[in-house]
């Protein structure tokens, strides 16, 4: 403001107005950025698009002792029907480095091909480096069809 040669009170008013303008513009900008940030934060329902129950298939086509891999884009998982007729859905993603687990039918365990991490049917770590147990999903049968709740 040194380049201005008009009287001092004139400078004051001009700079005051300029600051006021900048303040209003900044507040407006902050508001808009806030709204946009809030909008862009993904809602929890985003990956599922309102569908929470994943249809696995008819129960009668699922033998006891069978395990099926479901290549779901966000939550790939294994569905296992045990010999005791229990339905289990376990995340297929190793908690160590996100490798996809394999089903070892002989041992009845999920084994990671990367570093040999092994999980039991409750998702607990048996052997290896994984730091956390596997995520489990709720299963239920409606009209003879197996559904897995992913939300």
């Amino acid at each position, binding site marked *: 403001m040194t380049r201005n040669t008009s009287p001092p009170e004139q400078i004051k008013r001009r700079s005051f107005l300029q600051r006021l*303008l*900048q303040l209003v513009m900044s507040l*407006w900008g902050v508001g808009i950025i806030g709204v946009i940030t809030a*909008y*862009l*934060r993904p*809602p*929890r329902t985003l990956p599922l*698009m*309102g569908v929470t129950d994943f249809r696995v298939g008819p129960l009668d086509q699922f033998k006891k002792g069978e395990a099926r891999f479901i290549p779901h884009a966000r939550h790939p998982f294994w569905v296992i029907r045990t010999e005791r007729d229990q339905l289990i859905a376990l995340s297929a993603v190793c908690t160590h480095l996100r490798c996809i687990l394999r089903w070892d039918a002989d041992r009845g365990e999920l084994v990671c091909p990367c570093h040999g991490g092994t999980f039991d049917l409750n998702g607990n770590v048996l052997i290896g480096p994984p730091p956390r147990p596997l995520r489990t999903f709720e299963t239920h049968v409606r009209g003879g069809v197996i559904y897995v709740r992913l939300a």
Partner: protein
Amino acid sequence: MFGWRKWIDWVDHRLDRRAITALIRGFGLPATDRRSAVLGMLIIILLIMQIVTGLLLAFYYHPAPRAAYASTLLIIRDTHFGWYIHQMHVWGSHLLIVLFAVHVLGLFVYGAYRGRGEIVWITGVGLVLLSMQGALTGNLLPWDQQAYWSTVRTLEIIRAIPLWGTVLSFLVGGLAITPALLIRFYVVHTIFIPFLLWACIYLHAAALRRLGYGARTDTPYGTMPALQALIRGLLVFGIVLTLGTLFPTRFIEEADPFTTPSDIRLPWFLWPAYGVLETLTHRIGGWVLFLVLLVLLLFPFADRTRQPQPPGKSVTWGVLGAVVIALITFGYIGYIRGG
């Protein structure tokens, strides 16, 4: 102020700031008087708002039949402020059509189409038509019953217009509503129309400049224009927000090609065209609309005036009166015939 000068100088030493301001000025509509300057600035602000809101909507939108509905529902219901952004985009589009139309009326009243003003006029009318096409293609995207069935009816009108219908049906891959049409509408809506709109504005401004309009825009931009732009921006923002809050567009159940709802209406700007088709049958009315479009686009070529000057008072008021009466009459007929 906040050490801005230092930053501006830093950039200026590496990148000629004047080259950028010259580019922006090139885009600016040359302001010959206050009224057209205000209108031009409102249009630019509104266009920028449409781009920002449209870009935000594109973050969640999926252009595939079932996903389109689900993703629109997600935007409206599950995101923060998503319904606001959606309503702003919808109402912004209506307002944009109105402002472009007022602008073209202004071109006529000021006689900007005369004396080598053909390109000014054609790009001006092109802007109105483009903004309408933008609203029409955007209308289908939410993929609810309203979107689907009003598009079915819109395509019926477009089909009735000779040549235009043929060209358009080629561009969008047939006039049946299929997944292919949805994605073409999406591409036209999000890429072609914004690009063509800015190109039209640039040509429009360049042509006006060539004719000697806007000689006074070389004065540097100071605080006052910025303040005016801010106030106008806030005004447009407020109007669009208020309209979107008080009169939100309906979002109803998902599109179902086998159930036609009874209360589907055409977009308001098609009511006059629909009124013409209803009064004169689709065959004759289609040709009438075609001729109207042709005359609307090409009449400046018939004008022999050498200088851009307002046409005589009686001509101005005669033509304006006829246009407004025709729009209101046929618009009303179109509306009561279920348009």
